[in-house]
């Protein structure tokens, strides 16, 4: 059974998604337990698979029993083993945390919600695990489609934002497909490893360069890098809370993983960093993303829209860090990919918990929250500190690597952008803290005792606090995270071309 584990990671959530549709129609109460069980099994098998990969290197699982270039294969190495665990963990925590809100908001479409939820998770897991370029496109579409539906379920404004997300997402995916088409014309194969082997033998080099550019632009649209980010703040701000706190932490990170997989495995880093002059151009693009995103976030008056703008900044960190091209920058980008998923989950869950008690989404509406919802605000503080990059939390350690990379690469624009955005983050988050700390709650009286607290429901606060604790744990054990998972990915590259 151990050999079949990789397949389990994908099939279990898919079968659960199908089961949940039927459960939705027959007996509603079954939906949540089925989804919970599926994601638990997925997380477990992801961890076991990662154990296998750590034990005896990269793992290839042949679907349908066919040799890779003919059939489709899973390719799991240190890079995507960790991200599999990350995706299933975030999906699991969010599922548990948003149970009561979902049961209340989507009463009569519970089956559909949980099925779309699981299809979204399956799509992302499939993208991360697959070793076939076209198969990645199909799973990209599944994740996007269920994402459009989950995000679109809200007021009129959410529908329009989701429609824009459909347009941008489709253009991005189609550009990626076009890039794969170019590769197919030149090599005739779709399997990533096979492509990597065939590409050097191709003499029409300009086609490879154009296909690389197309793939990159398509992925930049999907991960909302600066000039192409317009859809993200609206899509995540207007969406219902449970789906925003699922999609926000994961989509941009998995798209980033696809970019890294493309550069490191398919096109080989030599093409991306040495032969094509786009490396420093993209880093300057990332600098623009960081600055613009920070200023945009500072201007917002609504809490969740501000948090969405911060995602644009984080994408700028990761893309900039990766394209610096040196070991520290790449390690920083990968570590930030892991950290940022948890950080975004923490603050979006906190925003969701606040939304259950305070109906105004504006920042001004958060008066006296430290007194009213102390635990939620404590988790929000930890999340905010992680994003600012204050030491005990994980954000600091990935920012440290990014800064290191920026300085070693001599790219002072990127280093300055990192520092400026940290300072702006301080302003942003402490603007929120001040409102929650200083301004008195309407019937706020000083000498209130314990019973005054109106916390969010317990099954929302406990996962939230667990995530906050996780942020600190990831911070303290960042070094073992790096040496365990990220080092084996980066070190072979360093000896090689760079």
């Amino acid at each position, binding site marked *: 059974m151990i050999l079949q584990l990789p397949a389990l990671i994908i099939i279990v959530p898919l079968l659960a998604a199908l089961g949940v549709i039927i459960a939705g129609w027959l007996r509603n109460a079954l939906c949540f337990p089925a989804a919970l069980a599926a994601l638990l099994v997925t997380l477990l098998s992801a961890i076991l698979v990662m154990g296998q990969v750590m034990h005896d290197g990269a793992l290839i699982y042949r679907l349908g029993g066919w040799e890779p270039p003919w059939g489709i294969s899973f390719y799991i190495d240190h890079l995507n083993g960790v991200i599999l665990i990350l995706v299933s963990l975030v999906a699991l925590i969010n599922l548990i945390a948003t149970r009561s809100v979902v049961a209340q908001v989507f009463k009569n479409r519970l089956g559909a919600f949980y099925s779309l939820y699981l299809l979204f998770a399956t799509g992302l897991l499939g993208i991360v695990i697959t070793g076939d370029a076209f198969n990645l496109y199909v799973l990209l*579409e599944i994740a996007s489609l269920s994402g459009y539906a989950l995000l679109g379920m809200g007021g*009129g404004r959410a529908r329009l934002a989701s429609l824009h997300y459909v347009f941008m997402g489709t253009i991005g995916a189609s550009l990626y497909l076009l890039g794969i088409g170019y590769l197919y014309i030149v090599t005739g194969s779709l399997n990533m490893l096979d492509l990597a082997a065939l590409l050097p033998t191709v003499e029409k080099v300009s086609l490879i360069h154009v296909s690389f550019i197309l793939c990159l632009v398509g992925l930049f649209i999907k991960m909302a890098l600066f000039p192409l980010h317009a859809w993200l703040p609206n899509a995540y701000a207007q969406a219902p809370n449970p789906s925003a706190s699922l999609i926000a932490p994961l989509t941009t990170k998995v798209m980033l993983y696809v970019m890294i997989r493309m550069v490191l495995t398919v096109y080989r880093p030599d093409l991306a960093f040495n032969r094509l002059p786009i490396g420093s151009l993209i880093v300057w693009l990332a600098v623009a993303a960081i600055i613009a995103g920070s200023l945009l976030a500072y201007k917002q008056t609504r809490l969740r829209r501000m948090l969405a703008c911060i995602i644009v900044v984080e994408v700028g960190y990761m893309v900039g860090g990766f394209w610096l091209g040196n070991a520290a920058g790449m390690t920083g980008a990968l570590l930030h990919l892991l950290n940022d998923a948890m950080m975004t989950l923490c603050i979006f869950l906190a925003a969701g918990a606040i939304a259950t008690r305070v109906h105004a989404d504006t920042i001004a509406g958060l008066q006296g929250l430290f007194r009213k919802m102390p635990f939620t605000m404590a988790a929000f503080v930890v999340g905010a500190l992680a994003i600012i990059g204050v030491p005990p939390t994980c954000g600091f350690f990935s920012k440290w690597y990014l800064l290191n990379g920026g300085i070693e690469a001599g790219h002072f624009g990127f280093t300055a952008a990192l520092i400026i955005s940290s300072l702006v983050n301080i302003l942003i988050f402490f603007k929120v803290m001040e409102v929650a700390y200083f301004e008195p709650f309407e019937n706020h009286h000083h000498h209130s005792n314990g019973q005054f607290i109106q916390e969010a429901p317990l099954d929302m606060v406990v996962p939230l606090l667990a995530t906050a604790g996780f942020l600190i744990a990831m911070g303290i054990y960042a070094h073992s995270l790096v040496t365990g998972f990220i080092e084996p990915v980066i070190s072979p590259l360093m000896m090689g071309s760079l």
Partner: protein
Amino acid sequence: MKGLSMPDWAEFIIANYNYWGVAVLMMIGLYAIIAKNNLVKKIIGMNIFQVAIILFYITIATKLEATIPIIRHGHGHGAHAAGIQAAGYMNPLPQVLMLTAIVVSVATLGVALALAVSIYQRYDTLEEDEILEQLKAEELRQV
């Protein structure tokens, strides 16, 4: 038709007009998404863009003087497989991929139309600028 020698520019056009058609369709589709004001026209533009890419893959699959990729009855049955020449049949792989891409474009079209229908139910218009005005008015009433 074989014997008639064609000038090389005609040869060149025959060899490449498919790709130009695909490129033009892509430009039309992309421009429609960006520039059009009506939501359904944007959706149509999106569909054109996806169809263009499907066409692009299909042009890769074609082979001159090759039939559709179904092995003719009795050809290479049992005796020996060597009888099947690859040049005789078109390339099946892109057609499989495009089956998937067609299904994906239909699914995306379905979701986009569902969103458009629900927006129309809510705002009674599909013109984006009118929708944005109503949204702004709603925003002012709320604050």
